[in-house]
């Protein structure tokens, strides 16, 4: 098995993050925005894991532990986010984010 270069891992994470960011910023569909957020979180996870390979033993554990928390966070975020989307969909019959720009009215 050939060792993957640490720098390449970071590049991949950066690429993923940018894809997630672009999705969040450009899509109007709420589901896609949520997906973009998930992709960015996972890109961060990948970056952590990548660094845990290159750093010394003491620090490397942290790089493995943080993603576990992030996965838990992402799960709860997805859970709440989807629930909210269903609720707002009831009122506006739309998953277009711009349709919710005047919530206080």
């Amino acid at each position, binding site marked *: 098995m050939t060792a993957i270069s640490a720098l390449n891992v970071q590049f991949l994470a950066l690429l993923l993050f940018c894809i997630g*960011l672009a999705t*969040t*910023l*450009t899509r*109007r569909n709420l589901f896609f*925005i949520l997906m973009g957020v998930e992709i960015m979180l996972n890109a961060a996870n990948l970056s952590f894991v990548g660094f845990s390979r290159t750093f010394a033993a003491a620090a490397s554990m942290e790089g493995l532990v943080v993603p576990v928390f992030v996965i838990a966070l992402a799960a709860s975020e997805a859970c709440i986010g989807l629930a909210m989307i269903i609720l707002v969909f009831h009122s506006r019959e739309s998953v277009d*984010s*711009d349709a*919710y*720009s*005047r919530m206080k009215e």
Partner: protein
Amino acid sequence: MNQLQNYLWLLPVLPLAGALLNGILALAGADTDEGPSRGLSGFFGTVAAGGAFVLTLLLALSLHPNAVFAQAPWTWIDAGSFKVAFGFSFDSLTAMMLLFITGIGTLIHFYSIGYMAEDRGFARFFAYLNLFLASMIVLVLGSNLLMTFIGWEGVGLCSYLLIGFWHKEEANNNAARKAFLVNRAGDLGFLLGTIALMALMGSQASLEYSAISAWFRDASHAALFAAGTTGAGLLLASTLLIFLGCTGKSAQIPLLTWLPDAMAGPTPVSALIHAATMVTSGVYLLARLSDMFVRSPLTLSVIAGVGIATALWAAVAGLFQNDIKKVLAYSTVSQLGYMFMAAGVGSFDASLFHVFTHAFFKATLFLGAGSVIHAVGGEQDMRKMGGLWKKLPLTFLAMAAGWYAILGLPLGAGFWSKDLILERAYGSSPLLYGLGLLTAVITALYMTRLMILTFFGKGRDEKLTAHAHEAPFTMTLPVVLLGLGALGVGFFWAGMIPGLDSFHQMLSPVLSPAQSFWARGNEAEEGSALLFAAIGTLAALVGAGIAWAIWSKAKIEAVGSSAPKGFGAFWTFFFDYIHGIFIAATKALAWIGDKIVQTVIFNGLLALLIYAVGMVGDAVRSLQRSRLRVNLGLSLCGLVLLLAFFLLGAW
């Protein structure tokens, strides 16, 4: 050093406390018809003034002539090298001023108990009077120009309040406003002059009188204001501007029109503020800054010229008045002119001595006039009086003493001070002396006229004079005491009684450096003092004789208003007309300011600004719209910028 000097702060605080107490009393009794207890508020007011007098007396007695009591409770301004203390200093000049301010002040407070007894605003009157006394004490006691300025403004305010005391009559309010506004013009001169003085002193700028005197006495600074330098211009500007402030407060040309109108106030106010104390603060300031003024000969000549012109003009104007208080008001302006002339020829001690004696005889005359007005039920027109000496013997005797003193007849107070001034004026310029002598003749003329019209002949208005009666004890006592003073205080410079001749020596530490500096360049001719006294007395007798010849048998008809008519009116209101020109010019400027500067320029600019702001607002508003993607994108941009700033900026 003396323990007493720690109580300097008590001097202004005592009357201030009296003012507060009386203010509270006035408020407490505001809802009743009677008003608050007159006994209580009169007691507080008089005791506060008397307490200040006793304290002044104790301080003055324990003061060594060369020493200064100083106290600075706290620092007021502390900006780098420029410091101003909230300080008091009590030297012999202050002692002299305070003695007669608080002494005569106490007597006039006492007098007011009787004079104002029927007035609903009794407590309010005493509150104002005490506040005035506190301000006057601060003016004289302050150790620097800024402290004096507090007092200066304070007495101006109290003067305004008291002139307009009977504020239900529009004329009184107008007089009060006039006094306030004319004084404001002078105060501007005071402030600008102070600033010019600071500019002249440069890095050693200080507002403390001691520092200013020391700076000017230091011969090495003379080069800074030698002829032809910027410093010379600054010195000239500073002295002239401060003198302008003095003309406002002391009713000299050009700012003198307010004082005759100020007679609208109650008579004790006229006696205290507009004759004895406040109007002399200009002379006090000249003496305080004498070290500066003697170094500007041009300004001193201006002061002497303005002084004699004012003295002569006001004396003539006094001849045309029928209102007894107006005569005394013009007389005050005229006597103040003498004081300024004395200061202008470098004799600050003589001018202060005249301040001192004038305070006594003019207060006597005003309080006497107050008793007369009280006796004839508020009438002030002398043409309706006459024959009152039998009805008011005490008042008549006291006023006769005042008359004797102001004429400068032998051994009266004015004999010593006025002749001293004329003698010094002769040493400087015979022209000044001649005009001064002419003024003395006219002074005798109008004062004798006043006495004849008021006290001699037959009562010309039976309704008024038939029921005339002597005033109560509280009013006659101060008048008589002041009348005795008017006869006696001249001996403080007389040199006839050893030990009493203390005035000159007392002021010498404060004034002699300036006066000897002045005398070096202006060698005065010594005349025979006896000759001057004889000529002065002769002038007074001539004036009195002419007056007797004209008015003792004259038929006087009391018709119409008491205001002068014809040439008299032109002469009297001459400076009001001059003021009218300036007022018209100011109004034209105000019109330009309103219609052109305000409406066209400022409003135009404002409209342009409003339009521009509106445009920018519209542009920015599009960014603020709730578009999720735009908001997120912008916050991302912000994040990138912040990161770039902190990461790259660290290098």
